[in-house]
């Protein structure tokens, strides 16, 4: 029982010059976005469990470290993280749809733009709220 078999490109011709359905198009860029956001979210998750674990040390220790989440710099990082989660979440749903339904497969490029549209709408709603909390003072 093997995994999936792929054609291995030769050393002389590592990238075929034949145009493909995929290369350089919406799906390829979203694949890169999906990987990059996935890695970013994974490493944040490791840190986030560790900082939350400070609730078992003392209320003071937790409040001190969580205070750094409320600084302008970290507030912007958090906004980026929320953006990464939105992109990864809705593109993940797009991947499921493309695997599952022929309609979605045929319209996979359009669905990439739907993901960017949802991202734009949700961030437009979230950013004023969040940045107001971060920069709005007490």
């Amino acid at each position, binding site marked *: *029982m*093997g*995994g*999936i078999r792929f054609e291995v490109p030769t050393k002389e011709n590592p990238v075929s010059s*034949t*145009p*493909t*359905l995929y290369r350089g*198009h919406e799906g390829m860029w979203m694949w890169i976005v999906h*990987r990059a956001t*996935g*890695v970013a*979210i*994974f490493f944040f*998750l*490791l840190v986030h*469990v*560790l900082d*939350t*674990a400070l*609730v*078992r040390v*003392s*209320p*003071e220790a*937790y*409040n001190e470290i*969580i205070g750094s*989440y*409320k600084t302008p710099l970290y*507030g912007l990082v*958090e906004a980026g993280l*929320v953006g990464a*989660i939105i992109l990864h*979440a809705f593109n*993940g*749903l797009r*991947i*499921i749809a493309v*695997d599952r339904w*022929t309609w979605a*497969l*045929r319209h*996979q490029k359009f669905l990439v733009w739907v993901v960017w549209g949802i991202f734009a709408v949700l961030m437009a709603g*979230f950013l004023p*709220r*969040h940045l*107001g*909390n*971060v920069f709005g003072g007490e």
Partner: protein
Amino acid sequence: MAAPQLSHPLPSTRKRLTPARRWWWIFQRASGVLLVVLIFTHLVVNLVLGDGVSQIDFAFVAGKWAAWYWQWIDFTMLLLAMLHGANGMSYLISDYARSKRSRVILNALLGTATAVIIVLGTLVIFTFDPCPQDADPGLLPSFCTEVGR
């Protein structure tokens, strides 16, 4: 030369996988759907409702984890997110780690980190005490004094 057009779906990816990989393939999608619900709930409750990020402190966390359902929601989220993330990272390792040795080392590191974070997070959630005895009462949720704990 124009790119080929998509006319018919390819044979299902799932059917070409080994049983273990197929199980992870299904898990990645099932957990993904659940995580969309869990994480957006987490973000809305913690960052949008109330005072957003400004409200988060020990008393806020204690207020949530005093309820058993928040403990179980957060435990489910921790478990699914770590397994989903670890499986995703293992795809990257098999794609980008060139030698067998680097794959073994990176997978061992990934497995260790995942296990440590899941165990630590689970212990933190279920051994959590919202009203520690010797703590400054001003930092605790208001119900700690109300019920005389």
